[in-house]
Each structure stands twice: as C-alpha cells, then as structure tokens.
C-alpha cells in the first residue's frame, strides 16, 4: 500500500516536472535558474530516436595505460517503453561474431533478459539479469548509464540546480542529484551525481559520480555533440573511474536514426545468424 502511494507520488512529481517544463519555456537571461527537476525532465523527454543503428568502438584502458579496443555494431529500438539492444562484435578476431541481446523492461523491478551468442561454442547463452548498477561488458559504465544515454533519470533522483558553467564553450546548468531513497542508492551504486546540462539542447556534457560511501567515483565527458538527422547525438563519451584508474572511451560513428529496424531483428536467431 505504502509502495503504491510512493509510486503515485513519484509519478505525480514526474508529471508535474513535465508540465512545468512544457508550460514554462526557459527564458534566457532570466535571473532565476530552472529547477533541477525541470532540467532533468528536459533531458528525459529529449528525442533520441525511435530506433538507431551505429558503430560503437569501445576502448578500455587500465590504470597503467594499457588499452583494449573492441569494435561493434549496435542496434537499439523502443518497443513502447521497452528497450531492446543488440550488439555485434567485429574485432578483435577472437570475439568476432559474438553477439549480445538485451530486453530492458520499463518496470525497474522486472529483471531484464540477456543473451549472448558465442560463435566458438556455437550456442546462444542466457546470461545473468544485470542489476542497474552492474558494470556493462567490462567497461566503466553501468547498465543504467548505458540505458540513460545522456539523459537524467527523473525517477531515481531529486535534483537541485546549483549554478551555470561553461563547458567546451557552451553554457550549461549544473545540477546535483541525490537518490530518492537508500534502496535506489544501493541499486545504482551512486550516492550523488552532478551533471552539466547544455542549456540549449539539453544534452549532458559532463557528469560526476560518487559511490555509496561518498568517495568520488567517476567522471564522464560527453564530447562531439552533433545533430544527426535532426537528433542531438553524442559521438564521444569518456569515463574515468577514479577508484580503479580504469578509463573507457566510447566512439560512435555511422549513426543512423532513419533506417527502420525490423522488430524481428531483436531475436536470438539474429544473434546466431549475425549481420
């Protein structure tokens, strides 16, 4: 019962945020800064395409500067609020053909489904449902980071606007987010986040993360923000884990929002068949 109340409460806040964001367009030069929730909502409702296909190069760098690069082709499509992603590895040669499929359900309490096709085993294997705070494919991003893709979650945090700063020559709002409750904090693995949100296109340009013990955990930089087929797109995302010294660089190319991806594409059969 209490849970339900919370849900309703949360939804109300979100709705209110959206309403405020829509009704009160941001007036440049005004003294008062938009509220944290307004900014978060703006990022959340930003269009990121119904579906997208692109090349993703993942560069993993350890604390000694050794790096490992993996090139993939990735596909993502919304099925209502459900989100499906398929990743096909192209290099290095020993993982070529390996493919990864995720069904991400809108209800945070419902485990996602994940499969991996291992060509050397010639089998598709279901793998553990990931927690939102789990690291994604050996990178320094968590599953939740990947899912949000340069958006702020309006459900998990309460935000406060703390100022305006210039990042990469662009004006940004600085917001600080605190998890709505302890449980969410533990699930996400963050006790605090700070984001620099572009005042013009609502893309996040920089992020800072603190772990549950309050230690500075990660910094992300979002660079190369361009409009691709009229959709604001980040082509470079870098993250540095301050605790482990690891770094991950994501580089996107051949981004395509217009070619419609078939619903049937996101199946285990496609994993086996490959591209």
């Amino acid at each position: 019962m209490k849970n339900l109340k919370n849900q309703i409460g949360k939804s109300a806040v979100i709705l209110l945020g959206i309403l405020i964001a829509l009704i009160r367009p941001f007036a440049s030069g005004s003294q008062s800064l938009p509220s944290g929730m307004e900014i978060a909502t703006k990022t959340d409702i930003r269009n990121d395409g119904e579906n997208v296909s692109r090349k993703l190069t993942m560069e993993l760098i350890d604390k000694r500067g050794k790096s490992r690069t993996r090139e993939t082709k990735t596909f993502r499509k919304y099925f209502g609020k459900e989100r499906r992603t398929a990743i096909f590895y192209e290099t290095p040669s020993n993982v070529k053909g390996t493919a990864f499929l995720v069904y991400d359900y809108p209800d945070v309490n419902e485990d996602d489904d994940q499969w991996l096709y291992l060509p050397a085993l010639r089998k598709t294997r279901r793998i553990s449902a990931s927690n939102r705070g789990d690291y994604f494919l050996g990178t320094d991003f968590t599953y939740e980071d990947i899912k949000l893709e340069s958006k702020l979650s309006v459900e998990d945090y309460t935000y406060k606007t703390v100022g305006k700063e210039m990042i990469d020559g662009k004006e940004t709002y600085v917001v600080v987010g605190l998890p709505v409750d302890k449980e969410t904090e533990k699930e996400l693995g963050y006790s605090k986040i700070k984001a620099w949100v572009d005042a013009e296109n609502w893309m996040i340009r920089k992020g800072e993360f603190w772990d549950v013990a309050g230690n500075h955990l990660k910094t992300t930089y979002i660079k190369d923000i361009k409009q691709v087929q009229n959709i604001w797109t980040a082509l470079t995302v870098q993250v540095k884990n301050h605790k482990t010294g690891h770094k991950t660089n994501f580089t996107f190319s051949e981004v395509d929002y217009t070619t419609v991806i078939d619903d049937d594409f996101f199946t285990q059969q496609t994993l086996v068949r490959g591209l």
Partner: protein
Amino acid sequence: MKTKEETQAERFFYAVTQRYKLILTLSVIFIAGAITFLPSMTKDTTTEAFIPKDDPVLLYRDNVRETFGLKDPMVIAVYNESGIYNTETLRLIHELGERLKTVEGIDPDQLTSLATENNITGTFDGMLVEPFYEIENLNDSTASIVRDAIADFDLYRGSLISEDGTMALVVAEILDSHDDKGDEIYKAIVELTEETNTTNELLYVAGEGAVSGYMATYIDADAQRLNPIAGLVITLILFVAFRTLRGVVIPNIMVLATVGSALGAMAGFGVSFFVITNALPVILIAIGVADGIHIMGQYYEEVAHNPGLSQRKLVILTMTKMWRPVTITSLTTIAGFLAISYTSYMPPMTYFGIFAAFGVSVALVYALFFIPSALMLLKPQVSKPMKDAVKSDAFGNLTSKLGKVVVSSPRRVVGVAALTMLLAIYGATKITVNESRISNFKSTESIAVADDVINAKTDGTTYLDIKIETKDIEGLFQPHALRKIEALQQHLEDHPLVNGSTSIVDFVKKMNKSLNENRDEFYVIPNDEILIAQYFLIYSTGGDPTDFDNYVDFDYRLANVRVRMSQSEYVDEKVVQEAAQKYIEEHFNDEQITANLSGKVALDYQWINQLANNHSKGVLLALLAVLIVASLSFRSLRAGVYTVIPVIFGVAIIYGVMGFAGVWLSVGTSMFAAIAIGVGVDFAVHTVDRMIFFINEEKLDIDTAFKAFYKTTGRALLFNVLALSLGFGVLITSSVPPLLRFGALVAVSVSAGFAASITVLPAIIYLLKPKFLRIKDKRTDTASIKKGELDLVA
C-alpha cells in the same frame, strides 16, 4: 716510578679536572641537544623494513603485488560449529563486511567474503554470474543454495570457506596510505568483532596484515614497560655496590647520555625505530653501567687506600688507572658492532651496529670527561662496603674465594671450561634457522589463537605467489599455457605442506562447465583459444571489470597462482619454495611461458636464508675485529688472543643454550651474538688490563696480583654482571616470547662472559704465563706448577 704513559695520562686528567665546569656544561648541553631530536623519531614496524629496499626479491614481490593488487590481508573468521550456511550466519558475514568498510584505513572496495564474491553457475540454457547471495533475499532456502554453490566452486572452497563449511573468512585490505597503521586497524577490527552480537558464531581476527601490523606494537609495548624496570633493578644493584648517591647517579647519567645520543642520532638521521631497536637501549645501558661501575669502583678503592688526598688528586689517580681499560673496552665493542653492521643483510641490524657503536663512543667520551668532571663537583667520599683498604665486603670476599679456587686448581677450571665449551658447541650444532612471525605472540594471545584456528580450518594464510609470464598479449587464452599452470598447481597441491592453490585456470574450467549445462566432464580447460577469449567476454556481462585483477593482468599476459599453506615457519616455507623452484625449472619454463616465485614464502626464503648465510660470517668478523683492536690496544697479539677467549666462550654458550633449548636462530635471536660479543669483551678487557696493570706496572708477583685482581676487579666485574643479568633478567617475566628469550639469553651471555673472564682466562694466564705479562714469580719452579701445588694465599 711512573711510566711515560702514566705521566701523560696524569697530565691529561689534570687538564680535564681543571676545566670540569666547562665539561659539565657541555655534557648537559649535548644530552639536552640529543634528546630534542627524539620526538622526531619515526617507527617502522613493517616486516619489509628488514629487507634492503633494493633487494631484487623484494622489488619483484612489490611488482607482483602491484600487478595483481595483492596485499597482506586482515582476516575476520566467522566460525559456526554447526555450519555457516544459515540465514543468521550469512547475514553476519554480510554485516561484518559492511562494518569493516567503515573502519578507517580499510579499503572498502577490496573486501572479499561470501557476501561480496560472484558465483558462476550453469543453467540449462546459459550461464549466470551473480553474487552468491543478496542480503535482501536471504532465507533458509537461499542459504542452502549458497551451500551447493560453494560445493561446486573449487576456487572458494578452502580459501574463503573451510572445506567442512564451518568457517567463512571476511578478508579486508589496508589502504596504501595506512600501511604503517596496521596495529591500530587490527585493534579497531578486534573492537568491531567484540561489539558484534553473535549467538552461534565465534569470531577470530588474524591474517598476515594483522600479524605483522600488530607484532611490533605488541613487542614494543612490553619492552617499553620492562626496560625501565630493568633500569631500576640495575640502579638498585649499583646502590648495593657502593651505597652512595653518586655511585648510582653518575652511571645513570652515563646511561642517559649514551642511550639519548644514540636514539637522538637515529632520529636526527631519519632512521626509524625498528622492532630490534628495542635491544639498543639494553646494550647501551650495559656499557654505560659497566664504565660507571669500574670507574666508581676504582674511585672508592683510591679513597680507601689514600685517606686525606684531595678530591682532585683522587680523581686523577682513578682516571690514570681506569682510562685504559675503559678506552679498550669501548674500542673493542665498537669494532665488534661495526663488523656486525658491515656484514648484516638486514638494514635494521646495520643501523643497530652503527648507532650502538656511536652510543659506545659517546659512553667513552663521557667516561673520560664527564665522570671526572662530575666527581670534581663533589667532596671525597667513602663507600661503606669499600671503606677498608685491606679487608673487603662480602662481595669482595666472594670473588676472592673464587680466586683461591682458580689459583689452586687452574687445570680443573680450564678442564671444566673446555668440557662446557665442547658441550656448547655440540648444542650449537643443533640450532635450527627458523622464523615465524606468529610465534612472537604468546600462544594464548587472541591473534595467535585466531591464526591457529584459521590455519587449521582453511587452506592457510601463508602464500607462495607464482607469477606466470607469457610471451604475447592474451597469451593466457592459449590452452597450452593454461594446462601448464594447471599441472603446476596440481603438482604443488600434491605436496604435503600445500593445502590449496588458486588461479585463473579455476575460473576458465568453471566457466567451461557452466556453459556446458553444468556437466562435470566439462570441468576442464577447453582446447580452443578463441572459446576461452569469449568466456572472458561473457563473464564481463555479469562481473565487475576488476573481478580478475588478482589473477590476471589487463592484457591476459601475466597471471598469478596463489599457493596456500597453513605452516608459516621458514623451515616449511623453504621446503615448498625449493620444491616449486625445482618443478618450474625442470617442467614449467619454456619459450612461451615462464614462472617466478614471490609472495610471503619467497620473501621469507630470501630473507632468512640471507640471515643464515651472513650470520656466522658476521660473528666471525666481529670476533676478528675485536681481536685486532684488542691486540693493537694492548700492543700484543697474544694479549688480544687472551681477550678473545672469554668472548668466544660466551658466544659458544649462547649458541649452545639456544641449541639445547630449541631456540631458533631467527631475526630476533640473531642479535644475541652481537650482545654476547659487545658485553663479553668488556669483562675480558678488564681482566687482561688489570693483569697487565698489577703485574707489569705495579710489579706485583703473580700471587699478589691475582689476590688484588679478585678483590678489586673481581668485585667490580661481579657487580657488573649482577646489574646486567638481574636487570635484563626482568625481561624473563615478560609474557612476550621474544622478550622473554631476549632477557634470558642476555643474562646467560653476560654471565658466561663474566664467568669466563674471571675463571677461565685467569686460569689460563696462571698456567701459561703469557709473555705479554712480565711475570716474575719468586717460586718459578716449573715442577711445582706442573703439580698444581701452588698455594698463593698464605
């Protein structure tokens, strides 16, 4: 008639006594100055301090640790007699981990327990990488799932959970920034466990990090409690010897000057206080007190013989007679310490030798300048027990009686000594070189109990780390490389002293099994390099990027095999180390893959081996240095040889006692020979010097000379030995094993040195009449000597 030397000495002390105020002022300023450095003294309680910083084995160990993020762990063991797989115990394991994260100095990201590790399981259609349990979903049925999971995961069985399922370890690591706070962190963890409510569980705290972190504090605490008591006992004996205030105060100021300057100099030069540095005050007290006893004894002797002389004349007379033995004892001791310092492999021992030698030099300067100056402040004073020039007190009578025995049956004395020596040498052959840090704790100490329990239940907390190196990046995906590692592990696990081993191979086999519907026949290394590469990719979908950090490097080129044993003694480590080395050389290394040993086992092996190799060399060199300096000082090689005899005797006795008592030659006990030499030589020098004085200078015939020797020097030496052996005997009351051994063996070594100097050495002199003594015995009837019929005490 005075010799030229005496006239010069007289002139010198004439000058000294003239400037006594200046000298006293300088003496006080020097002590005060040295003491101001003391607060900047740093402590180094680490085990690594005992190994030279540039030692290749230490550098390699650090490199392996850095590559794989390994550290000496702090371990909490959770023991539940009826098994740990129940909601309550699993919850406790989780909670202990969470609370450990809040202990200052503990790395919250490097916690390992059943509650933090990921399980790999096979399902009918896939593989899961997930925590063994989540605290939120914990109930009796999940607890039994955890039991099954551990039963199916070799890697954690024995290393994290005991084979019988009654003990689980929670392993924490210390942050680099808190490396020197091991003792505080240990105590904080103990406190944490004491505050934890348990019903069916017992908690134990141990681990190599705790042991080495806490050991130094543990020893220091008792040493710092008992060393002052030793000082007090020594003071008491000084009082019994002289029954005057100055007879007590002056030697104590000597001690303050020597100990203060040596420790002050250490602090000033930025040299840390190590565990063995606790022995430095001890040795300096011994030397400072000895100089004081001999000079003050001579002073009271002069007062008794020359009533009515002015204080200045008395002081000059005393110093003219005592400067030489005091100088020679100091020079020989310095030579001995510098020789030990020069040959030592361990930096703390090197520093010990240097600063002990420095302290002894200060003692010499204070003996020659400060004592006469201090006496100048005072009026002539009679010491009650020494007031009579002819008669002596009970102690003097005792030594005189001893003298009679020596003179009446010198052959018997030498014979007994020779037999004792042979026995000691036989005992010395039984000495084992060994070291075990945990044995420095009293066996009932909770950390020792914990170590025992953990080692009995699990695969053990002593590690041999084997660093595997392949030629190319991702070389460890090669089945050939993995099979070699598997064979190496198998070979070592067959060794009776090895309880288990872990490596990346265990994960590969586990993943292969899991991805093949959990079929047991797939618990093998797959024969496909590409498949292995893909296993690691699949693992990364569920695990953390750092999960394998302790096992492989980022490039999958280097791997660490951790071999566990429950015996932490060097003798056992040596066997395993050598077996591993042999296998690696004969069966492992090839062009594609090589292995090198590291970890605690390899480090101890190097360290204690070096100790064993250098120790006898150091002792021999120290003896040689003492011989050379004594010979030069007495301007006679023969006198030098005679001086060394009691020292050799004392050293032999020490090793003999160690051999018979089963005391290992270890880091701590390797100090004993140095102390036996440093202190023993003082007794011998006094004997030889006084013999020269009475026979060559006072021109006494041998019988009268011996009589005088036993009455005066004998008495002084007796108090010297009483002060030191009773003083350090206090340490025998310590419950800390190394201190107890230290106290007992210092007492033994001092007593042996004393006994040899006052019995064997005079007996040999009496028998052989060496040329450096111009003995003009009226009854130089060789026949009568042969018969041993001499009766000198008429």
